[in-house]
């Protein structure tokens, strides 16, 4: 007597294997969807924008006429913005990370600071804009200047830099710290001369990625009232300015059809800017990262 019906077992197995194959294909196409979206996005922007990417585009200021519109003020403005955001956010971010990883005791205050940072990372950027508008633009009366925008952006990317720096500092093994103490170094000497040099590639990689987020962020700039059409370059930290995403937003919003192509060209400039920053980050990661 047969206890097992071989035919039905084989049939069931084949069914299960077929279902497995079908779902493998479904999951693969789900992955492909994202890649396809990315490909279409790049293709569209490059084909639309490349025609307007002329030398004059980099030399002209904003204009009412698509053919005369240029990106000079926005590009230089974004670079100015980075010169404020980079030092402020890196000093604050790395300082906080050193405190949390090397000095903080395990107590409620430390837990509170950690929880606060993770919540701050989830606050929408437009709300940071409202903070900047109230505190920096109005209360400290910095106006819609490079400095006010820079401070706002620094606070926005601060959580990202803190988390990246914490991870980089944590990756430095304790042996080297102990060796440093063994040689008679104090805690601060150990941090500055031993821990930070080993952690710096990780910190810089994280910081550059965070800065590239700040370059592309638009909403806080709109809320703090950064103007769009500006016919001069920033002269100082308290000068008015405009930035790449602001300029793109303005062009994309305009009704004339030709401005779409100008906007696409602006996006190309922004993407090249980001590409350069990201390549630097990858270069630093590959060149200087140490493995213990």
């Amino acid at each position, binding site marked *: 007597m047969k206890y097992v019906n071989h035919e039905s077992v084989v049939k069931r197995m084949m069914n299960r294997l077929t279902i497995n194959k079908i779902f493998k294909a479904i*999951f693969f196409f*789900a992955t492909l969807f994202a890649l396809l979206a990315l490909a279409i996005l790049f293709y569209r922007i490059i084909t639309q924008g490349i025609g307007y990417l002329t030398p004059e585009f980099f030399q002209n200021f904003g204009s009412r006429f698509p053919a005369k519109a240029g990106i000079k003020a926005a590009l230089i403005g974004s670079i100015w913005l980075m010169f404020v955001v980079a030092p402020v956010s890196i000093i604050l971010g790395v300082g906080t990370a050193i405190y*949390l990883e090397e000095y903080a005791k395990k107590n409620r205050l430390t837990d509170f600071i950690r929880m606060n940072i993770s919540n701050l990372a989830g606050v*929408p950027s437009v709300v940071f804009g*409202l903070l900047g508008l109230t505190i920096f633009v109005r209360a400290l009366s910095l106006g819609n200047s490079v400095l006010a925008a820079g401070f706002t952006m620094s606070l926005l990317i601060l959580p990202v830099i803190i988390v990246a720096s914490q991870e980089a500092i944590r990756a430095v093994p304790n042996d080297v710290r102990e060796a440093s103490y063994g040689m008679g170094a104090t805690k*601060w000497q150990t941090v500055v001369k031993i821990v930070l040099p080993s952690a710096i590639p990780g910190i810089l990689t994280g910081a550059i990625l965070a800065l590239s987020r700040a370059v592309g962020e*638009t909403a806080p700039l709109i809320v703090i009232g950064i103007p769009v059409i500006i016919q001069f370059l920033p002269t100082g930290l308290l000068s008015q300015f405009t930035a790449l995403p602001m300029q793109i937003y303005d062009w994309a919003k305009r009704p004339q059809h030709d401005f779409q192509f100008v906007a696409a060209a602006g996006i190309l400039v922004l993407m090249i800017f980001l590409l350069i920053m990201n390549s630097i980050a990858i270069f630093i990661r590959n060149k200087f990262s140490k493995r213990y």
Partner: protein
Amino acid sequence: MAQKQVSDQPSVQELIAKSSSKKQKQLIEKMIPYILLLIASISVLTTIGIVATLIVETIIFFKEIPVFEFLFGTEWYPFANKEPAFGILPLIAGTLKVTVIAVIVAVPFGIGSAIFLSEYASETTRRIIKPILEVLAGIPTIVYGFFALTFVTPLLQQFIPDLKIFNALSPGIVVGIMILPMIASLSEDAMSSVPNSIREGALAMGSTKLEVALKVVVPAALSGIIASVVLAISRAIGETMIVSLAGGSTPKFDWDVTGSIQTMTAYIVQVSSGDAGYGTTIYYSIYSVGFTLFLFTLVMNLIAHAISKKYREEY
């Protein structure tokens, strides 16, 4: 130079210099933790600043508009000359429409690609696809907004002739594409942290890869997957530029996704880019809308935090 110290002992001046520099060093050692704590407290001050700013200006707003009207009013006409209406429900409806569409797009595709990357893909495939997803996550939202307005909307109009230039559908889909990498990468992390021994156990019992994925790995990683979805929802609610460019500026309290809408974030942008005078009701209204938005995302983030903390399975 001519006079050389005969004895081995350092001169008195040297000793004094040495001890004073030591004192200085000790002082620095003692000061450093406090200076660093001061820097660390900036992040706390930022949170306090955000909450205080929003509350103070919202209270001023509520002096002019009753709380009840703001919370339950179904009309939002802040720019009307006669009898402007400040009921936030239309803005919330706009935000929800976009968020729901984004979730419908992002969750199946995001979790699908997470399962593919974690369970099916070879190491080489994963090493190629993961950085591409990171690129997708790093694209500025203004670029997505432009993409929604100039590509997705015209494309959808070919299938849905009634679709307006500004609508909820197109920005919803694009916000979904924007949050997809977040769900995919966080879920993939959760699935990858399920130990291989469990997978091998199930495979040894004769399971197919699909059965391992759906009956073993996904349940074990469920808390991480749900947390990733909740975080992504929070991101979708706070998304600003895509909805500002492609969503329009007519807040309506209904469930129509083909017509123009306005989200909470888009309203803040609309008022800020125009010139609403400082001190007007409209000026204060952006803070009350911002406060509502802040509470929405805060609740979402706290939920995500609680889920991943409470149901984390330790192996």
